[in-house]
């Protein structure tokens, strides 16, 4: 279905799709990692990654508010852990009054297939116009960022739950932080508490918005850190840094001139559980390896037969 994702965004269709992320064959595997989501990184879909069932619900409402904004008109993915979040139970507040939810997303008139006003949609575009049309998507994605920030606030006011593109935990005095995304953030918070109890000055960062990438928010979050550990849940085979989010984080921090070490772990591939203990292990290995951890590019956590010590 990869092809139609590009078509949906190229036709500027304000769709909303929730994605229970899953490993990709072969071998066939129906458990969680983020290979499918990271594969569609460049398809021009606004992409949220939620970490609780409640956040999935709230973000889907927000997603319609963003997608249908005439300044945006891009499709939105609301991603979350397949199996871990899609096939397990969590308590959830649901808005009783559906008309209240509808009132948050105004009905807007837009171009449609109407015989009274015929339009041609999805025509062929040659080299003389294609670039300009695709550049409009670049602009729309840029524009979407501030609109998402506004809608974050609207959702907070309307539903009483507040979200940020980049969330942090115990970051203010931290020297080292661990950044990840999706449902495992809850486990990360637990392990930060445990590491704090052992005396480490450690914090946690969660990436909630993947596209458009929250450049300034990330920069703000990591300022003052000496090392950032990025735990990725997908592999970009043969890449300089194999974790897609780590690659983006390194590019962003280089661009912003932030001089800190970024260490990349890949973990949880094909539904391999990532527990508090795993985060602690990655943290301890990073300390032990020191500079070498960065130079390795990517460390594949928990894979049999691979050791970095």
């Amino acid at each position, binding site marked *: 279905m990869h*092809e*139609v994702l590009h*078509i949906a965004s190229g036709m500027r269709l304000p769709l909303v799709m929730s994605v229970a992320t899953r490993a990709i064959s072969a071998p066939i595997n129906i458990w969680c990692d983020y290979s499918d989501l990271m594969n569609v990184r460049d398809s021009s879909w606004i992409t949220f990654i939620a970490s609780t069932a409640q956040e999935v619900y709230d973000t889907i409402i927000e997603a319609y508010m963003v997608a249908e904004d005439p300044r945006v008109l891009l499709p939105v993915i609301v991603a979350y852990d397949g199996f871990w979040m899609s096939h397990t139970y969590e308590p959830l507040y649901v808005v009783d009054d559906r008309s209240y939810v509808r009132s948050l997303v105004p009905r807007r008139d837009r171009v449609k*297939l109407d*015989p009274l006003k*015929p339009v*041609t*949609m999805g*025509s*062929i575009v040659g080299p003389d116009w294609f670039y300009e049309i695709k550049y409009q998507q670049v602009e729309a994605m840029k524009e979407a960022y501030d609109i998402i920030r506004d809608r974050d606030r609207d959702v907070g006011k309307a539903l009483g739950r507040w979200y940020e593109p980049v969330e942090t935990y115990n970051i203010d005095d931290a020297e080292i932080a661990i950044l990840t995304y999706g449902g495992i953030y809850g486990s990360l918070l637990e392990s930060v508490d445990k590491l704090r109890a052992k005396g480490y000055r450690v914090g946690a960062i969660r990436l909630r918005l993947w596209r458009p990438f929250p450049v300034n928010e990330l920069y703000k979050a990591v300022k003052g850190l000496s090392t950032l550990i990025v735990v990725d849940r997908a592999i970009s085979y043969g890449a300089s840094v194999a974790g897609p989010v780590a690659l983006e984080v390194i590019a962003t921090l280089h661009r912003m001139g932030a001089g800190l070490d970024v260490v990349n772990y890949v973990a949880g591939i094909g539904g391999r559980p990532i527990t508090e203990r795993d985060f602690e292990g990655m943290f301890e290995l990073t300390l032990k390896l020191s500079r070498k951890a960065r130079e390795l590019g990517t460390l594949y956590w928990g894979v049999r037969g691979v050791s970095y010590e």
Partner: protein
Amino acid sequence: MSELRIRGVRDLPREELFAPGHGLCAGCTAGTVVRHLLKVTGRNTVIVNATGCVEVSTTMYPYTSWRVPWIHVAFENAAAVASGIDAAFRVLARKGLVDPSREIKIVVLAGDGGTYDIGLQSLSGMLERGHKVMYVLYDNEAYMNTGIQRSGSTPLHSWTTTTPIGKVLRGKLQVKKPITDIVAAHRIPYVATANIAYPIDMDQKLARGLAVDGPSFIHILQPCPTGWRFDPRYGIKIGKLAIETAMWVNWEMMEGDFRVTTRVPRRKHVKHYLTLQGRFKGLTEEEIEEIQRHVDMEVERINRIVGEEVIGPLVE
């Protein structure tokens, strides 16, 4: 929906909903198919076009040849898009956002590549779900748009760029996939085959397809000067010969009732059809006879279904 009565060309509206200035090849009969199609459907229509010749030749941005709403999404999913439009209109009507009395007609237009091969599963899904969509297949028997590669529709021993006629290969090794039989096996209300050389028969079938309550499928043989390698003036002549040799049979099936609409009392040998086209150049007598045997078997099968000799014996 009431059916448009067509007994002759004078019954067709003069209004042209397919604008001139498109980029189809000289002598291309796909343009003729579209022109007739829109005369039968009228303005109150949404066209869903699969990727193919008609799509690329009629919508070169910033121009369009379509005076009705038109959408193209991808090669494989025209029937799925049409299903979505059908479902969307129902929802909009239920919500009072579209007047249900407008009865907007939804028509898929797809070539053989987008139907026989790439779009087969979306087509089958649309038929099985029973969407009220008319699917029009313009069949030029290969991927003409991309440079004449074989498709599931390419007939036996036909040359294409991927099935050359030479020492190793003798054109396409397989016979044409019976797509209309496959569609008919879905038990939809109306299935028909048509031929651009018999426009009134074709237009009547398009009108019937629009009038039924449910999916309909119109399969039109569309001679292609570029891919079939013939002089652009011969498109209609070749269409006629396809019928006269029974390489093509015009039939329809309304609610399971099978009828041949163009009877052929005396049949010509397939060589009359084949020799006008460069794509069959270089075939041996034996290979031509092999094609003839396949046609003979098909004629026998059709006559058996109808229960009388609607396609006559080989005479010349």
